């Protein structure tokens, strides 16, 4: 119990460090702009390219388009929520597939040899090449009344990126139990399923948690990139593209969208950290995670 509290308090300390880091970046940003007014910098530091921090914040409350009721902040928030849901969908699918692959590869050695090269090769295909292909194939799919939508393609791409780190991490984790532990289970006449459930799976947690973190980040990046390359509306990816077009008139708006993407990443990281604390609460402090 106190160990959990320990971790939470350590968590808040690191949160404060992150906050301090953000403040530091903001200060350096403004100092750079100030420096730009004195000497010639090798890059553009005008308000057009690097708006003031306060301009960015004031952009939060601007109407999204002239005369509209919704502010930029509301638009970014709803876009971030939309992307978060897509990323979550992709993450869940990716983690499930990754875990399943890891279990299959662990159970059947020949499948590890056969599948692993494909798993690795899958990640060498550039996403930009893959996205139109997935959309193209996806749009031809329909299950009775359910019609494939492009948002599924976005989730698919997110899942495609998310499954990889998880399957590799989970495979290592499932193979982590010592020979002695496995012999012990054999001496108890435990079935493969019992060994998986009572030994391999719990033993894989220290490998699984970092893999989950990487997968979650991959799902978010995959969602944003996929939104852009598939042209799906409503998410933060599309919003960034739209706001970038208005950069000449309202440069601060793009940065608000970037903030939205950052907050998206932070929310996901915080959620995984909570899962981490929950899963590793009973393990020795000096875990791999």
């Amino acid at each position, binding site marked *: 119990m106190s160990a959990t509290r320990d971790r939470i308090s350590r968590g808040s300390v690191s949160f404060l460090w992150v906050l301090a880091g953000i403040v530091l970046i903001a200060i350096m940003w403004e100092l750079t702009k100030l420096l730009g007014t004195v000497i010639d910098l090798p890059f553009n530091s005008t308000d057009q390219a690097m708006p003031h921090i306060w301009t960015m914040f004031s952009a939060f409350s601007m109407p999204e388009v002239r005369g509209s009721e919704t502010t930029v902040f509301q638009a970014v928030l709803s876009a971030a929520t939309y992307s978060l849901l897509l990323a979550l969908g992709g993450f869940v699918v990716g983690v499930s597939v990754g875990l399943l692959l890891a279990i299959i590869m662990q159970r059947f050695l020949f499948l590890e040899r056969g599948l692993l090269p494909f798993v690795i090769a899958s990640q060498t295909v550039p996403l930009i090449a893959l996205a139109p292909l997935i959309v193209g194939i996806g749009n031809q799919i329909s299950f009775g009344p359910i019609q494939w939508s492009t948002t599924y393609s976005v989730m698919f791409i997110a899942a495609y990126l998310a499954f990889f780190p998880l399957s590799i991490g989970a495979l290592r984790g499932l193979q982590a139990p010592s020979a002695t532990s496995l012999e012990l289970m054999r*001496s*108890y*006449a435990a079935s493969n399923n019992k060994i998986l459930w009572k030994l391999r799976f719990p033993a894989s947690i220290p490998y699984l948690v970092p893999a989950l973190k990487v997968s979650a980040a991959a799902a978010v990046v995959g969602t944003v990139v996929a939104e852009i390359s598939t042209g799906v509306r409503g998410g933060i990816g599309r919003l960034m593209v739209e706001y970038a077009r208005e950069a000449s008139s309202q440069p601060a708006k793009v940065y608000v969208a970037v903030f939205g993407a950052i907050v998206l990443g932070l929310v996901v990281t915080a959620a995984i950290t909570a899962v981490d604390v929950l899963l590793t609460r009973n393990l020795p402090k000096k875990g791999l995670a």
Partner: protein
Amino acid sequence: MTTAAETVNNAGSALAISKVSKVFNKGNENEVTALSDVNLDVHTGEFISLIGPSGCGKSTLLRVIGDLTGFDSGSVLVSGRSPEDARKERLYGIAFQQAALFDWRTVSKNIELPLELAGWDKARREARSAELLDMVQLSEFGNHRPWELSGGMQQRVAIARSLAVDPPLLLMDEPFGALDEMTRERMQNELLRIRVDTGKTIVFVTHSIPEAVYLSDRVVVMSPRPGRITAEINVDLGARSETTRESDQFFHCVTAVREALRTHDTSGSFTSSHRGEV
């Protein structure tokens, strides 16, 4: 479980090993005869130690008995059954040099693991693990995590776990090998007490001559290349006590085992390579 134990009592033979051979990497250049024509009978309630230098096959023999590895020829009967049947009927418990406790389980839950796998219900499991914790004098540590305990305490938990389903046979592969000398002697006394309390048949693998002599009714001396039994020394020390380790008789037995180990050292490398391990 009781029927199995009764069969054992009737037969009087806990273990019957006859002409067992095992070859690793058969047919390739790394071929090693791990066991060659091994014969060994252990009667119910007996405590025997397998001793010998590294590579003599003592651990392999233990693993053959536990069906953790196969053998090429000969026959092995554990409580009158094949090793595989004996394992599947959970007729033996095993403890290794590493306690191999699961970090994510409490001490009690570790002891309950074999019971869960044997299909015991929760109430019976809890009662049994409390009883066993009491036996190894760790009652107040049931809710601790294994990594919060000392090495000796962890090994006591591992022994409790090996006794969980109350199997008639206990296989122990250098269980005290990683402990310091003081803890080791305390654990030896504790094991002897448990043995008297439970009447288990015990097969104990060790590198240590004094440990083998102190614990066993019979010390089985093995020798490598090929792994085989070269001598069996009966230890007749009666009930062990504080003074046993300092008695002339004890010293006499230790010397006998040491000489048996030296006599059969055909390779000539034993004395030098083994000195560090004892």
